[in-house]
């Protein structure tokens, strides 16, 4: 029963090791920037865009995490995000952006409730219910648009009128020039010194023109981790995903907790949709979610069903997307980054005499180097498939180490074990 024991504390990978790894990667990135001259690799502009692109994926990933931790697959995140975009835009248009975000969460929770009733009460296959959720949202919101937005100036069957006002954005004082203090980080970023310039650029990107909604979304990562791993409620919720029979035998109301888990999951997805409609742009537009619900699921797998892992995965996708949008030409610099990083792994493997890992890393180095030297522009279709390719690679190489909740996706009937 090691599974039950591991439930009681969240495994940590050692903060010091993580810090060293982080600075190591940043150092490589800095070297790449100095070699290639692609200043945008770590510029505040790129990082700011990356953050705004990360948030919806992050929230979708957390939505998947909450659902699977309670034991239910949620393929319907995309649909719940669509509900979030619609209700968010409607609220922002009628009442202002904060009410909009609230309505987005409620809209997503509505989707979560439908998915919960279908899968928990009626035991409909969880994948099918999720797919239905996606279709239902797409066409349902279209129908509601016809009722609410058609004929309104700037509105129509596939889009809402723009919202009133926006969520406030802040420049952090003393770091990025908020409250008319000096823009210290901006000064360092302009110098472009090794490591310091990159660190300044990244920090400035995260603290300049920062939407309070982005801040809220990022804070939900530690909040999720705390609730799931440090509270009784979280323990019960996870036990429903690992071994519902055991949970029930210990007096946990599994059905109730599964409903709650899916409502929270839907709320996260809805907030992600609301962010797209209210912060990333200022209105609802059909197709706006553009598959982010599925990318969110990919980051959940990528992140090994942990909030910090989801944040990491979402940041990778958000960063590559942001770099592509803001400085398309710089993307090839990432090949050099991979080549150098994998090259260091080769050296480490030789020292540690781990031949298999060394060979894999060597091949990676070669391919990445070749790509860096030959490719001028990464084709659009390739960058779009990046999240899925990365997920496949992770599944193929790290599947031994991934640990999904044991009973995610398996229907549960109370008393079923008797």
């Amino acid at each position, binding site marked *: 029963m090691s599974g039950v024991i591991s439930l009681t504390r969240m495994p940590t990978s050692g903060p010091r090791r993580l810090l060293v790894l982080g600075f190591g990667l940043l150092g490589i990135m800095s070297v790449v920037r100095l070699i290639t001259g692609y200043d945008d690799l770590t510029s505040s502009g790129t990082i700011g865009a990356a953050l*705004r692109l990360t948030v919806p994926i992050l929230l979708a990933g957390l939505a998947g995490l909450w659902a699977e931790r309670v034991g239910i697959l949620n393929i319907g995140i995309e649909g719940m995000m669509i509900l979030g975009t619609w209700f968010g835009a409607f609220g922002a248009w009628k009442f202002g952006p904060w009410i909009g975000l609230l309505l987005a969460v409620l809209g997503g929770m509505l989707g979560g409730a439908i998915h919960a009733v279908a899968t928990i009460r009626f035991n409909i296959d969880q994948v099918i219910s999720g797919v239905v959720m996606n279709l239902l949202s797409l066409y349902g919101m279209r129908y509601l648009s016809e009722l609410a937005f058609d004929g309104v100036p700037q509105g*129509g*069957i596939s889009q809402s009128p723009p919202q009133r006002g926006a969520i406030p954005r802040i420049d952090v004082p003393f770091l990025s020039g908020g409250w008319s203090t000096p823009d210290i980080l901006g000064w360092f970023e302009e110098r472009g010194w090794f490591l310091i310039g990159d660190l300044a650029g990244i920090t400035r990107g995260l603290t300049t023109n920062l939407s309070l909604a982005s801040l809220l979304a990022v804070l939900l990562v530690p909040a999720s981790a705390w609730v799931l791993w440090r509270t009784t409620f979280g323990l019960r919720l996870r036990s429903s995903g690992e071994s519902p029979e055991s949970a029930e035998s210990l007096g946990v109301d599994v059905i109730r907790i599964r409903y709650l888990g899916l409502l929270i999951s839907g709320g996260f997805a809805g907030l992600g949709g609301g962010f797209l409609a209210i912060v990333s742009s200022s209105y609802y537009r*059909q197709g706006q979610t553009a598959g982010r619900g599925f990318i969110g699921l990919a980051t959940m797998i990528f992140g090994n069903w942990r909030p910090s892992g989801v944040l990491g995965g979402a940041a990778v996708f958000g960063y590559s997307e942001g770099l592509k949008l803001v400085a398309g030409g710089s993307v090839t610099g990432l090949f050099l980054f991979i080549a150098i990083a994998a090259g260091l792994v080769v050296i480490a493997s030789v020292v540690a005499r781990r031949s298999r890992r060394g060979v894999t890393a060597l091949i990676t180095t070669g391919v990445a180097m070749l790509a860096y030297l030959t490719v001028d522009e990464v084709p659009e279709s390739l960058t779009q498939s990046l999240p899925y390719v990365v997920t496949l690679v992770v599944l193929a190489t790290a599947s031994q180490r991934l640990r999904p909740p044991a009973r995610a996706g398996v229907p549960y009937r109370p008393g079923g074990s008797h």
Partner: protein
Amino acid sequence: MIKSKRLIAGALTAALALTAAACGGDDAGGDLTLGVAFDTGGRGDGTFNDAAGRGADQAESDLDYTVQELEATTADDRGPNLEALAGAENKLIVAVGFAFGDALGPIAEANPDTYFGWIDGYYDGPNIITTAFAEHEGSFLVGAAAALKSQSGHIGFIGGQEIDLIKKFEAGYIAGAKAVNPDIVVESQYLGAAGDNAAWGSPDKAKEIALSWYNAGADVVYTAAGGSGRGMIEAAVEAGDGKWAIGVDSDEYQFDTPEQQAHRLTSMLKRVDVAVYEMAKNVKEGTAAGGFYPFNLANDGVGYATSGGHVDDIVDQLEDFKKQIVAGDIVVPTAP
């Protein structure tokens, strides 16, 4: 289990009944019927589809057409929508958008008594009326306007899908800008690969791109990406004074909020409304014939908008360019 089967059966019956009702409801009275199959985005996109919608509205009011509209929700709806409009015995069916490619030809051949108008596509057939818009010519003029207005000598272009059609916009825009200022820096970025329909509905990404260019000193951006274009005007407003956005297909000034209008330099007009209206008129008068109809600067099928008066000071230069293009003195490239 039995319970859920009964539920499903009930749902299926309801769905069938709805479908039957939808099919039965189209027997409208008059002889002149016009079916419009919009592409994804549809009415309210503020640009391309709305232009076609205006043409249909005009045909309804001036030519006594009864108009039936269907809009593709996803890429899979285009063929079925055309089939449905053909089945409803419309006199003329207009397919709005290049993406009707594979669906339109066979359906048109199977319905020889119906005229099929196709915006932005070409298929040979006696009952297929196709349009060739010279988007590159219109884009040349707004490119020239951008270069004339730019203080920094740094402008940008955002495209939707990276396809030949949108590259025409880009090529014309760059050529127009370089005709004014050979040293001008023109940024260029696409939102998606061919077939990626999200490219027409990603205002958030268009906004990030435009914002990064404005912040890097660019002062005019032109977007040809359907509904994504609204992200650009939001970025222009956010970036502040002296930052301009150029709209596409429709006169987007008409759809802007007052604070956005202050940043809307002009729009490249693609008179899809005129094309739809002309098709309807010819079908009514019995003069319609299949083939290929050009819409260019010479017949005002493309042009630029003057709403808001932001280009009033350079209109003479723009008209001069227009004359040279019409006369053939300037040949605008169609690929960048």
